[in-house]
């Protein structure tokens, strides 16, 4: 057989791959497979989904207007005049406020993390891939922010900028950016020195093309895992800010703020006072466990 025939004949190829075709799942399929067999994560994931759905459809689900006050119906127990969970210190329906409060808590949990992923992740990839000077400039700046405990930093920024949802989101984003940047930078610099990046350079690819095709896909995994673990932290920090009066302002229904205003009546209505705390606890632990499950599922050797 001539050389050309060997190369072009499809039969010749079959000689080389006559070994049984070992079709194994792709990476994401294998992650999905693991997740689908992890009951704990599935159950808590379902709870997270329910919390999100409740927040989205709050206007349909809430039995009362969460802002409607009543002088007579203050701090009433469960079931009083059709209020399933009673009323708060201004006579507003607890259940409705808890339902609406979920909206703000979820926004405060997700928005800062998303912003941090975008800004911190981008800075991290640049810092990891660019030369020594850019890396030093970016990472040392981040280290300055890193030096402060996260709660203190959030309190300080919010204190300086004033309260409100928007300022709260910004201050929490600033807290998360350095950590996110570091995760992205570490992942990038690990990938950067691998042979396939060098092969891409050897094929004449520019930096942008290499980052887009070869770096991002390998950095997103660790960044996503880390981001998912930050959501519950963000919810807790946001509640903390509101509790201190630095986050969401009255009369908005927010779990942290509710905890703060109800605490004065802790001896009168201990159960009502505890309810926003329970909501925060359930939401944050669910996000945490789902994050752990996703992390375990994504930790597939490839």
């Amino acid at each position: 057989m001539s050389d050309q025939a060997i190369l072009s004949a499809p039969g010749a190829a079959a000689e080389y791959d006559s070994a049984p075709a070992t079709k194994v799942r792709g990476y994401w399929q294998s992650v999905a497979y693991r997740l689908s067999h992890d009951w704990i994560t599935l159950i808590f994931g379902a709870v997270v989904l329910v919390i999100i759905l409740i927040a989205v459809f709050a206007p349909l689900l809430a039995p009362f207007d969460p802002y409607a006050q009543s002088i007579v119906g203050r701090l009433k127990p469960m079931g009083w005049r059709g209020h399933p969970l009673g009323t708060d210190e201004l006579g507003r329906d607890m259940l409705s406020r808890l339902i609406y409060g979920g909206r703000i808590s979820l926004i405060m949990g997700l928005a800062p993390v998303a912003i941090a992923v975008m800004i911190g992740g981008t800075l991290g990839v640049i810092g990891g891939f660019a030369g020594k000077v850019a890396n030093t400039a970016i990472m040392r700046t981040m280290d300055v922010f890193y030096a402060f405990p996260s709660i203190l930093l959030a309190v300080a920024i919010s204190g300086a900028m004033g309260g409100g949802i928007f300022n709260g989101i910004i201050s929490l984003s600033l807290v998360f950016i350095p950590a996110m940047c570091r995760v992205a930078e570490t992942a990038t610099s690990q990938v950067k020195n691998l042979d396939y990046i060098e092969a891409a350079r050897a094929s004449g690819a520019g930096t942008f093309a290499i980052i887009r095709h070869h770096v991002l896909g390998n950095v997103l995994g660790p960044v996503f895992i880390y981001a998912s673990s930050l959501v519950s932290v963000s919810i807790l920090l946001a509640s903390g800010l509101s509790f201190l009066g630095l986050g969401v302002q009255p009369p908005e229904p927010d779990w942290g703020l509710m905890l703060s205003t109800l605490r004065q009546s802790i001896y009168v209505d201990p159960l009502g006072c505890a309810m926003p705390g329970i909501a925060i606890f359930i939401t944050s632990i669910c996000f945490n466990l789902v994050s752990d499950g996703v992390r375990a599922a994504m930790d597939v050797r490839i």
Partner: protein
Amino acid sequence: MSAALDIKPYVDVRDRGGSAQPMLIVRDLKRHFRVKGAGKGAVVRAVDGISFTLFKGETLGVVGESGCGKSTLARVLLHLVEPDSGELVFDGDAVAAPDGISVAELRRQVQMVFQDSYSSLNPRMPVQDSVAFGPMVNGRSKSESRRLAQEILIKVGLRPDLFGPRYPHELSGGQKQRVNIARALAMNPRMVILDEAVSALDKSVEAQVLNLLRELKRTLNLTYLFISHDLNVVRYISDRVLVMYLGQVVELGPASLVFSEARHPYTQALLGSRLSMDARQRVDAPPLVGDPPSPINPPSGCRFRTRCPNAEGVCEAKMPELGAWDGRDSHVAACHMQDPASGHSKAGLH
């Protein structure tokens, strides 16, 4: 040193056109690395004054032990690591010179195949996309690149419909190495640098890949620089062999001559360390004692003198040059014993 440069090409000199022009001329190439934490001014002389000529259509084997600088040499040739000094001439054009060939153009014409390892292919990319990546970033359309990738996968013996969409972890070592070769060929190169390209493979698979490389070279008219620590493989695939020791060339010549009449004691020791496949011909006395010295601050004079059984005063005092003292300039060795005028007591006995 200059004798090596003026080697008369043993490709047919009557050949017309560009084929008498060597593919690559390397002249006094140097690359040193500073090492932190190994004392003041510690320098690894990874590539320290290397000169050779690579002719069109030949396979030049590069052998040496770990730390001899053979992998750095590969990277310096492609400017993946910038050389400190020295000259590279690719097909008559000086690389990165104002009137020569640009590094980007060099990288289109010269490709590299790495050792198969977990890091040689992007784990998150189907292998057909890895192969298509080179053509794509060089201006081909996405569908054209994909089509090209499928053609090349056939050439390396992988069915594109079966293997193209797979991820690297779904392939065996040999299949991955075929993909690595396909990725290099997708750029339609004239020269390929193979850096330990078969070293990580099992023996039965290594044979498949070596056969494939030979076949591709014939059909695609390629020139190979084949880097390996395995002398048997280098002897099999190479036309000429270059032996490196601590960043320098110690011997260069036609493969048959280097393996049958090695001139440098280091080459002789390397050959003597090869294991026989016959249990009745075991090696009983290792030819060398000790490990290769660290490439940081190498010995003065001849770098091999610390392990050489024939070392004398002159070896410490003077660095031997790669010469051609008996007129046969296609086979040269950097050893004082080769030079009758060196003052070595065993000089000129060959």
